[in-house]
């Protein structure tokens, strides 16, 4: 079991008014699953991802990450989990503009306190996985959108996390570039990673083998998809 969330609620307070973003969501995810989360805008996809990514805590309900209840952890304990066990990929890339590619990818390793030589090796490996070894000294603003997103993926996987989360990773990319990014996710999945991605696009969702649809903060449907591109690849593999 990669993680399990159990009857999670997230309620925001907006000037005295309660805005429920999640209303009793439960989800069990096994290791090496490849899940797409879909649903209309405002249905709570990002909120759910933030909770799974330990960026946020639920108002009520429980979240077990690899068997450990993390729903009540403090700020700094969550930081350690984000650092070591979660790889987050954002729609807007979220790279540090002043730092070059290498430093961006190295940063999670700095926060986990690894020595420089080890950091160098791991960061270079991760950058190579996303095919950017020739851009290692470049700054983010010297790269295309697709390349930036690859850097973000390299950063997400550099610490060898249990789960890779991607909130609309292709949302800011054209469809050809988006497709390239998706092949990277496919490869990561094939090499054993657990991947959860939020998307609005059907053809992106087709890469996953399980699609969870949210509506108004609740799971509307949760089904295994076997006729997608993923299935085709699996058959040919």
């Amino acid at each position, binding site marked *: 079991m990669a993680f399990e969330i159990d009857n999670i609620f997230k309620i925001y307070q907006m000037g005295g008014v309660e805005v429920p973003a999640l209303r009793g969501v439960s989800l069990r995810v096994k290791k090496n699953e490849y899940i797409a989360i879909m649903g209309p805008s405002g249905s709570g996809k990002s909120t759910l991802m*933030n909770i799974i*990514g330990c*960026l*946020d805590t639920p108002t009520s309900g429980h979240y077990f990450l690899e068997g450990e209840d993390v729903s009540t952890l403090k*700020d*700094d304990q969550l*930081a*350690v989990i*984000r*650092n*070591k066990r979660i790889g*987050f990929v*954002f729609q807007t890339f*979220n*790279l*540090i*503009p*002043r*730092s070059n590619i290498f430093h961006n990818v190295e*940063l*999670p390793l*700095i*926060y*986990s*306190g*690894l*020595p*420089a030589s080890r950091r160098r090796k791991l960061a270079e490996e991760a950058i190579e996985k996303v095919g950017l070894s020739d851009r290692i000294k470049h700054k983010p603003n010297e790269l295309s959108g697709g390349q930036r997103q690859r850097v973000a993926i390299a*950063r997400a996987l550099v*610490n060898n996390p249990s789960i890779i989360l991607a909130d609309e990773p292709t949302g800011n990319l054209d469809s050809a570039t988006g497709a390239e990014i998706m092949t990277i996710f496919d490869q990561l999945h094939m090499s054993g990673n657990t991947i959860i991605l939020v998307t609005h696009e059907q053809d992106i969702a087709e890469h996953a083998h399980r699609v969870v649809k949210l509506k108004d903060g609740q799971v509307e449907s949760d089904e295994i998809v076997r006729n997608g591109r993923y299935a085709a690849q699996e058959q040919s593999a």
Partner: protein
Amino acid sequence: MRNITDTFESLKIALQAIKANKARGLLTTLGIIIGIVAVVTTMTAANGLENSFKESISVLGSDVLYVSRTPWVHSGRWFEFRNRQNLTLKEADKLKTQLKRAVAVNPVTDTRRSIKYRSRVIDDVSIVGTTDKHIVVSSGVPDYGRFLNHYDVEYKHFVCVIGSEVKKRLFDTVDPINKKMKIGRYDFRVVGVMEQQGGAGMFGGPNFDMQIYIPITSFMKAFGGRDRDFDFVVKAPSTEVLPDFEYELVGEMRKIRKLKPTDKDDFSINQMSTLVAAYNNVMGVVVMIGLLITGVSLFVGGIGVMNIMFVSVTERTREIGIRKAIGAKRRTILTQFLFESSVICLLGGLVGVIFSFGVTALINSTVMPASISIPIVIIALAISVLVGVFSGIIPAYRASRLNPIEALRYE
């Protein structure tokens, strides 16, 4: 090990951030720069003052008392001393015979005259009439030639011993020994040159190197002796017995002056410690003013840096969100921004120290000998880092508490 890596990385990140905002960083450190210049200059000046003061009063000797008509240091009570009698040579002689414990009693008097050798003239030079005992009561000794001797005094020889600076300015490279020079209208033969003693000119005291010593008897013959006021320089057997000795000296002087027990002293006893006390007062004021300027400019500078750090935190809210999202703890963010503000201030401090070297060189060439010492530099840099930490702590704390999701959403 872990902490060292953290610290080193925080420092690197801080430097990177500062490099990205060079101009702004430098501008905000202006207050720090001024503050550091103020603190370094104050400390250096205080040091310089102290050194030249110590040097100059060491000439006076700590086991020596000066009997004078008026005290050296007093707060404008002129009327009290106005009617006092001058001290006379006769009284000096009486004191010499009555105060058996005195190692020496040396009467001195002085005036100011122009001096001349060949075509060179120096105006307004201090001419001191004294005796052969002079070198017993003071620490000055001749560098070469000899000092005044017993016969010079007894037979009113027109000979003189000149200070090292007089030698330099009047004779330059000429050997002055046995040369005739004019003091006022009179010819005096140079018999000796004093060792350099350092000046107390700054404290309104005498610059010993610019003095000329002549026999007190010749002095009176040349410049008149009637109505002249003398100082008696009295050397005690040791510094330890000085209080006792002073009591005895006052007693003998009162006898000589025939004072009734109810009369107040009509003379004053001066000593080195009086000057030290007065000097400490002056010094206290100098240091206070220096520290005030330092404090105000460091405070203003600190506020400036704090302001820029708030701006920096706000501008980089998103970056903070990113860092937190990938695992930076509160403490990591806190140290990153503390490092940043400390390094900004440290750089300001370094610039300040560099400027201070310039200011000190200026002081050195105009007012007094002064040089910046390593401890002063270290203190100054430590202060600037401290200001950095203080002005960075609130912005850094705020940054460390940011909610990662809100920070990431910040535009």
